[in-house]
């Protein structure tokens, strides 16, 4: 149940490391009980923003208000790096981090058992963390983050590196956690994940919020594009592009990379058809053609008014 009460409020947050500006006037609100998405390509400042939220970094200017009793006690953080000790077993990791929260041993044992069941690691308590699979490691990290019944759970690239099944399970798990009243913040570069989970989101590029709102709304702007990759021989792509000049308005963005022509278009099928039709005229032989959802970097470059 999403309240309209903001639990996190960022106002004009700026952060620099040396001469590099990591966060640039970031302002947003996270509603209590909701799932909030932070989307952006690598190096866009997502993790830094999350670290500012958990009070690991202080903003150079602006305010980050987290409306919980004590941030370090009431905010759980699952990082993309699996922050636990490989040399310890699953149980030992839970007991160690639980002790740092000041939890008593009896309570800790009970809570560990309950959490392992919740995250699907029941029966793996005595396993060394080093020997856990990628998915299981993410689950252990999640379990550690939930040890102290947090009000806010931050998930940094939770599903990165997981297979589709594990990813689905993880998303379901996050939804369950959210249903128990925990506000969830997800940072990811997977837009479909956000679409599936989030009530609200921001798009971050080069430390700046370039868009924010409901995923459905944002999807209209950014998810309509598809990426077409074509490789031909001898690869005179400018010649090909001149042959399809009549359809140029259907191409939002293009560039040549690794001797391949990469196009971004809202009408990909139509553009591919025209290119294939023009290949004979251009005396080009098709080597490879691929159509896919665009990489976020490309989308964000476009959103941020990047090169064309």
């Amino acid at each position: 149940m999403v309240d309209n009460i903001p639990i996190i409020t960022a106002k004009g947050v700026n952060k620099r490391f040396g001469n590099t500006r990591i966060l640039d006037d970031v302002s947003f609100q996270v509603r209590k009980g909701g799932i909030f998405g932070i989307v952006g390509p690598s190096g866009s400042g997502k993790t830094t923003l999350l670290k500012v939220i958990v009070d690991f970094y202080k903003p150079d200017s602006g305010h980050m208000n987290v409306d919980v009793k004590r941030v370090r006690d009431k905010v759980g953080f699952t990082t993309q790096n699996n922050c636990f000790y490989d040399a310890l077993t699953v149980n030992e990791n839970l007991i160690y981090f639980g002790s740092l929260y000041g939890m008593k041993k009896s309570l800790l044992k009970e809570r560990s058992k309950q959490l392992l069941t919740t995250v699907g690691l029941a029966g793996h308590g005595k396993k060394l963390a080093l020997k856990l699979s990628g998915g299981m490691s993410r689950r252990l990290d999640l379990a550690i983050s939930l040890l102290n019944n947090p009000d806010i759970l931050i998930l940094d690239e939770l599903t990165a590196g997981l297979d589709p099944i594990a990813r689905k399970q993880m998303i379901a798990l996050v939804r369950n956690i959210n249903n128990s009243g925990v506000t969830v913040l997800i940072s990811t570069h997977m837009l479909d994940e956000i679409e599936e989970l989030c009530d609200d989101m921001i798009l971050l590029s080069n430390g700046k919020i370039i868009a924010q709102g409901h995923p459905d709304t944002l999807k209209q702007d950014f998810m309509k594009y598809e990426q077409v990759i074509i490789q031909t021989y001898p690869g005179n792509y400018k010649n090909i592009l001149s042959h399809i000049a009549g359809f140029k308005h259907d191409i939002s963005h293009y560039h040549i990379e690794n001797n391949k022509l990469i196009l971004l278009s809202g009408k990909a099928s139509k553009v591919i058809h025209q290119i294939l039709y023009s290949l004979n005229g251009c005396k080009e032989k098709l080597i490879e053609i691929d159509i896919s959802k665009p990489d976020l970097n490309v989308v964000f470059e476009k959103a941020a008014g990047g090169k064309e």
Partner: protein
Amino acid sequence: MTLQLFAIMRKNMLALMRSRLSSIVILLGPILLIVFLGLGVQTEFRHVEIGYHLTSNADVADLDAFLNVIKSENIGFEYTSYETSQQCISKVKKGDMHMCIIFAEIGQKTTIYIDVTQSNLAYAILNLISSKFEEKSKQVSTELVREVLNQFVIASSQMQNKSVYLSNIRSNVQDIPLKLEEIRNGLGKFSVDMDYNLKDYDDDFDDAYHELKDYREEIDEQYEINKDRLDEISDNITDSKRSLEDKKRQRDAYIDEIDDEWSRKRCYDREYEDLTPYLEDENLAAVGYSDPECSVLYTLRLQILANTKDIDDSIDMLESMQEMIVEVDGDMDTYRSRARGIISKVEGSLDEAYDTYESTSDVFVTLKKNLQNLTDAQMAALSELSSVSELLNQSMEWMSIVETSLDDISEDFQKMENYNSSALIDPFNTTIELEHYRANRLDYFFSSILVMIISFTCLLLSGLIVVREKQSRAFFRNSIMPLKDSSFLLGILITVVSIGFMQATLILLIAKHAFSLSGLDQMGVVLFISFMACVLFSVVGIVLGTILHSEESAILSGIILSLMLFVFSGIIIPLESMSEFVYSLSYLNPFVMIEIFLQRAMIYNITVFSADLVYVYVVEVVLFLIVGMILFKQAKKRI
């Protein structure tokens, strides 16, 4: 916080134990080291060349006895005798001999020259030789001590006798304060105040002189005034007399004229009568009388005479007055002379009195001065008496203490009669086994080995754990947990100190049972110092770990730092041979500091630590912890 510290320590222990190599190094490392040390280090010396020279006064019999003692031990010493001390010493200088002993007469200084290039060996040999010297000297001095003990017994009985005297003296002295008090009171009552002022007498004399002078002047003045008055009166009388005499002469002239008339008229023949009764009649002419002319002359003469009768009286009176004045004048002179004489006499008396006074005054001043001195002396005497009284009281207390002490000493002496004289010579009760053991070089440098093991273990381990923590993915999670940096570092410190202390305990136990090290009699103190060493080296390692970024660099830096501390500890090169600067800084070296503590406890059995060193130790631990904390915070920013 305790829960957190325990959790950190447990986690560190588990992580270390999970690594087989780490656990082997931690558990078996010290055991292997001590075993190898035991195998490698032998209790006997081989091929130790010792030269000796006997000075002319040396007792050959004693030297032979000494050499026989050493030779009987069969410890691989080879002896060579030299004719001159120079020959013997030069052999040492050339490295042909390990040691040269110049024997002097027993009781005199015996000089030992050592080859310092093999310091450890040299000191170990010196130790052994010293013990043999000790043994020989023990033999000699046992007899002496026995004699001394006898003397003590005699002294004891004499002291007991003296103690009685002391009691008597004390009782005598007890009365002295009372008597002193009496004297003091007496002196206090005796007043020598002399509040006279001689100047008053001077003034009196001056006044008297002035008065006399005034008298004299007054007398003179009065005399002159009276004289003037007398002269004036005399003049007046003379004038009056002259006037009266003129009157008298006039009268006489008149009378003569009357008489002449009388004669001429021959009135002596005529009838005449005294007309005096008729002088009052207004009509004298109507009075009938016989011869008026002669009667008139007669009556005139009578009247003149009658009226001038006073002139004569007056002249007589004036003359008598003149006589009286002359007489008065004479009397005045007489009186003045007498008065002057009296004044002169008074003056003379006064002069005499003044002379007497003057002579008395000197005596008086001297007397007054003496009296003042006497007063001062009285005050000083009173003060001195108080001090003496206090001193006497104190002395009495001391005498009581001395008396008690004498009794105690006497008792001690009596106890000493039962003492073993050899126990007196050797308070550590050195046995022949112990001496044999003291020759073991392990005993000498065991403390250094212990410090070395602790330094390497703690320094490397703490540095490694900190670096590993920093590299660990869990470091970020630890940083966002409700866990203070100080607690985190303290957790690491406790872990490392526990491991280091466990190793040290293990080594000490093995050493105690396997090698019977004499220095481990103070096991508790040695363990405590080992704990201190673990703490100090661990905090140094923590600082190292916070600075470095990789395990390799932590290991290498730990080894290099440990070696540096070791090299500058004086074990290889004596500190005394280093530069003044290095020498002065050497006591800041944790290695040196801990080794001093251990050597004092193990070799010299001193369990009280030097306050300066303890202070340096505490300052270093606190300083390294603070630096470690600051650097750790910096390291967190780099996540």
